[in-house]
């Protein structure tokens, strides 16, 4: 065929124009991360979430502090009954006590820690659900990856930016609430309480990072941002509202409690409920909150959490509380890493072109 011959004559042995290697190529994830960060903090979702979490938090703390003064002495009395005679600060209880608001019967309003458990996923989802899919739908992804960056810079930069924004919101709200607490209660937290609060803040950051990683994974897998958001929100709702029921049913099947069950069988069932529950990041976070913000919690084993079964009414030192939550920290961190790794791998394997 004449065409083939024609094609062959078009190639030549001319030398190649070789450019020297450029050395000043920046770390792409930093440039991408800083742009994402700027865009996040100027976005409507940032302002809305900061306001919601801040207002709800202030309301919770304010209400708790109001009823706290009376209860505080009782709690403090119980807390100081420790064998060591060490006084225990009631300050962290500000974050864990559910307020009783006048005019509303029962404990209908969650504590601040409860709010974080509930709204943390929303934070993570809000800053992750369209991370990659928006770049695809806007048509910016091919332009971005044709710049001198590695492909993983895109997903790394976005994850870091999302995490930075989320920890910023959390830190701002916690500092704000501590101030409100200090002024309302007149209690200044001591060093141990500060350690506990900082640790709890880090744990909350990991908790939100888990949801951010999950949302990022959804944004890689699903082409449409709306689909990704719906799927992750559905997952969150199921865990929040039906998680306990699902766990009880599963535990009842695996470790049945027949009528006239022995104590051993009942205990096996209770332990199974606890173990299965720990598959949910929400349960993990709740347990860590309990142990870190309330030094009177000595064990996360369901058999021992009942105060009447407590061996000694003793407050744990910070290091022991940290030891108590360590398995939960590792589990939650592992879940986060797995989600992010899945997002990373599937993003790297995707074709740039739709």
């Amino acid at each position, binding site marked *: 065929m004449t065409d083939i011959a024609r094609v062959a004559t*078009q190639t030549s042995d001319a030398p*190649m*124009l070789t450019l020297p290697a450029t050395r000043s190529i920046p770390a792409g994830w930093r440039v991408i991360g800083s742009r994402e960060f700027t865009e996040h903090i100027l976005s409507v979702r940032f302002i809305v979430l900061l306001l919601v979490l801040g207002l709800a938090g202030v309301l919770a703390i304010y209400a708790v502090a109001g009823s706290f003064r009376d209860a505080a002495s009782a709690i403090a009395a119980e807390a100081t009954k420790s064998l060591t005679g060490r006084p225990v600060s009631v300050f962290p209880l500000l974050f864990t006590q559910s307020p009783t608001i006048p005019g509303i019967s029962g404990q209908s309003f969650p504590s601040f820690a409860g709010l974080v458990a509930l709204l943390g996923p929303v934070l993570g989802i809000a800053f992750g659900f369209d991370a990659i899919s928006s770049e695809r739908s806007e048509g910016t992804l091919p332009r971005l990856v044709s710049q001198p960056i590695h492909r993983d810079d895109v997903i790394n930069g976005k994850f870091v930016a999302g995490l930075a924004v989320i920890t910023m919101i959390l830190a701002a709200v916690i500092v704000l609430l501590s101030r409100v607490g200090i002024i309302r209660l007149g209690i200044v937290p001591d060093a141990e309480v500060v350690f506990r609060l900082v640790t709890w803040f880090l744990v909350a950051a990991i908790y939100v990072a888990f949801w951010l990683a999950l949302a990022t994974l959804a944004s890689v897998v699903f082409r449409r941002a709306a689909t990704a958001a719906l799927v992750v929100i559905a997952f969150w709702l199921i865990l929040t509202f039906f998680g306990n029921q699902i766990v009880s049913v599963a535990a009842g099947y695996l470790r049945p409690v027949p009528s006239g069950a022995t104590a051993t069988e009942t205990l096996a069932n209770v332990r199974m409920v606890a173990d299965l529950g720990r598959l949910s990041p929400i349960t993990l976070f709740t347990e860590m909150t309990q142990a870190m913000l309330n030094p009177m919690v000595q064990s996360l084993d369901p058999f021992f959490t009942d105060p009447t079964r407590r061996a000694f009414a003793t407050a744990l030192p910070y290091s022991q509380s940290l030891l108590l939550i360590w398995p939960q920290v590792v589990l939650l961190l592992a879940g986060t890493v797995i989600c992010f790794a899945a997002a990373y791998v599937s993003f790297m394997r995707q074709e740039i072109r739709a």
Partner: protein
Amino acid sequence: MASTPVVIRTRGLEKRYQRDDGTQEKVAVRSLDLDIRQGEVFGLLGPNGAGKTTTILMLLGLTEPTSGTAQVLGFDPLRDPLQVKRHVGYLPDNVGFYGAMTGRENLRYTARLNGIRDDESEATITDLMARVGLPDAGEQPVETYSRGMRQRLGLADVLVKDPAVIILDEPTTSIDPVGVVEVLELVRGLARDQGVSVLLSSHLLHQVQQVCDRIAIFVAGDVVAMGTVEEIAASQQRGTQVTLDIGADGDVTAVGEVIRAVPGVASAVIDPQDRRLWTVSVLPESRSAVLSALLVAGHTPWLVRDRGMELDEIYQRYFAATPAAVQEPAA
């Protein structure tokens, strides 16, 4: 010509996709040998899904070739993608920008990704915005831009990094006709004045013909022809004959008889689309004899068109020959 250095060289570059059922392979690009010289405007011409974009992505290291090699400015896109991407500006098909950011901010972001400091990029950005015809739109958010303005901004975006090679994928699809002329003029100017090499993909034949020094015609992953427009046209004339469209005064049948009587005319048929015209196959050296015969017979020609030289014809011929390939969507 031979002394002009090459900026992009591929040998046996090939990309095959596995089909979903895993039994069959689809060839997106087949054994491509390409040499693009410095300062040249090279056109990749072909319908959508013919392998143009896949070729471009392989050159940028954004997709891995199944076999074969590519070299861009002395770098291997697979092993040194960052170096390639630092020196090659790529304007993707349907380019997108961050809508909430202004035009200038978008360009500044690209500059940062290329390691260019803000104080260094400011003047370049002002200059580029003027060159692409958006001197006053720089401070507007891109979401207020029309598609044509985005395409122009895309061109500025490609030039921010001061590239040695630019690759434009369907650069004119969403620009109005006046804008197309401007954009193509800009592209030509870059190649002519700054020695930038341009690889331009398009399915629009006339634009490619207008601006490109050489072209490659892609059909279903194969390069079926490569060279200057004239070279391709010459290679496509069947045998030694050329095809002319002739229209002349007087009775159409009588005109046909005069044409057929000229020695060297192989065939003459009435054009089915325009029944006033004759489509004539003739030896090149007999073309003038046909015209003088018509004049002598009193049939003054009012239209003579040499089909052999029209790329349109070649283009149509290739695609007509492979209808299945044209209809098949991209992988």
